[in-house]
């Protein structure tokens, strides 16, 4: 076991001292889809002391071509990603403490979890949550590492509170036309390159090798073998409401009412009730059995109807599969769930 990290300690950027530091540090990975899986596996294998993973989704067949922690069995059993990921990661390194949360990350529940982290790694698939990460990073002075991809194209940037510009300096408005996996597809090599640049930066932060940190926005296309670094001179804005002289952290304010949200990469609408509900799956199953086929495991209840498939989580979230329009999903939700729950 002594030789476990020899090859990594031999690498100049880490060394024996860096290896010791990795063991003392805590990385939080928000989302263990494609990027989160790849980052989590590299950091756990590398010997990071504590890794927190957070994800609201279950493993689906369409994930398997690019999300490396999951097997066909996970897709068959509809295992929540955070559960499946923890199981695999722990087999890779029993020395790493792995904390796993099947929750829908929002500003309030994240706030408690991020405080302990030394770095936050973006494994999310939308900019709503990235702006929340950005504000949490600034409020608690924790670096975060942005990553995103579409098709064969990927990008990454490292945000260091007090030093670099923040996400809001780069994107004053929430992007509405972001190319998603839905429209451009995705190939696994683009995931891996994006995650590799994220992990390399995380390693620098966790080994306190901050002088090696990249100062640029990195862009690359793994199919065309293009690569570009964009400098950030003059981008940080003193007036920025997130990182400026008088920050208000706008994305940590005010959560909405019942929030409907179209998820990335599939025919699915997620419904989030305004209050956290706690379903009794046996009771709920009896109700829904009047309408369709129902089965459930420890984490999730599935109801198959002629027009759609619904997955229900303990916390009240419902994923409606086979539906793309938000309004239609809302109607289905109201029909089956508005009168249920505790």
């Amino acid at each position, binding site marked *: 076991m002594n030789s476990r990290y020899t090859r990594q300690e031999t690498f100049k950027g880490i060394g024996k001292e860096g290896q010791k530091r990795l063991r003392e540090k805590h990385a939080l990975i928000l989302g263990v889809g494609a990027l989160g899986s790849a980052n989590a596996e590299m950091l756990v294998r590398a010997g990071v002391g504590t890794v927190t993973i957070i994800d609201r989704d279950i493993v689906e067949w369409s994930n398997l071509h690019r999300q490396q922690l999951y097997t066909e069995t996970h897709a068959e059993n509809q295992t929540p990603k955070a559960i499946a990921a923890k199981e695999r990661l722990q087999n890779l390194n029993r020395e790493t403490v792995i904390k796993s949360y099947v929750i829908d990350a929002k500003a309030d529940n994240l706030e408690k979890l991020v405080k302990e982290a030394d770095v936050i790694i973006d494994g999310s698939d939308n900019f709503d949550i990235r702006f929340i990460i950005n504000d949490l990073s600034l409020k608690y002075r924790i670096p975060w590492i942005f990553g*995103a991809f579409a098709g064969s*194209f990927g990008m990454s940037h490292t945000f260091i509170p007090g030093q670099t510009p923040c996400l809001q300096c780069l994107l004053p*408005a929430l992007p509405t*036309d972001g190319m*998603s996996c839905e429209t451009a597809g995705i190939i696994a090599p683009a995931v891996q390159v994006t995650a590799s640049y994220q992990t390399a930066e995380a390693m620098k932060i966790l080994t306190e090798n901050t002088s090696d940190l990249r100062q640029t926005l990195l862009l690359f296309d793994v199919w065309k073998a293009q690569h*570009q670094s*964009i400098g950030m001179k003059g981008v940080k804005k003193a007036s920025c409401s997130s990182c400026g002289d008088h920050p208000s952290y706008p994305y940590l304010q005010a959560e909405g009412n019942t929030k409907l949200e179209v998820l990335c990469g599939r025919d699915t609408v997620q419904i989030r009730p305004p209050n956290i509900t706690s379903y009794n799956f046996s009771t709920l199953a009896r109700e829904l059995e009047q309408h369709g086929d129902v089965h459930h495991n420890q984490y999730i209840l599935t109801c198959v109807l002629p027009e759609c498939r619904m997955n229900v989580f303990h916390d009240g979230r419902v994923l409606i599969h086979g539906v793309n329009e938000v309004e239609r999903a809302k109607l289905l939700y109201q029909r089956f769930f508005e009168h249920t729950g505790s």
Partner: protein
Amino acid sequence: MVKVLLFARLQEEAGTDSLTVPQSDMSVAELKQWLEKEYGLTSLSNTMTAINENYTDDSALLSEGDTVALIPPVSGG
């Protein structure tokens, strides 16, 4: 003359990864409008922009010989 580098979906929309724009006497916002019209590129308003490999915004003014990179934010994770 300004050289424009395109990334991600913009490469597909334009059918190329770089363009040459004959004049340079304009802002980034004006360049984006011009490209939307001339090359049918869709919604460049949210596109991130760099001039000569440094990040900038829509109000920046271009100079002769500049290289402009237009980077649509992607969201997959």
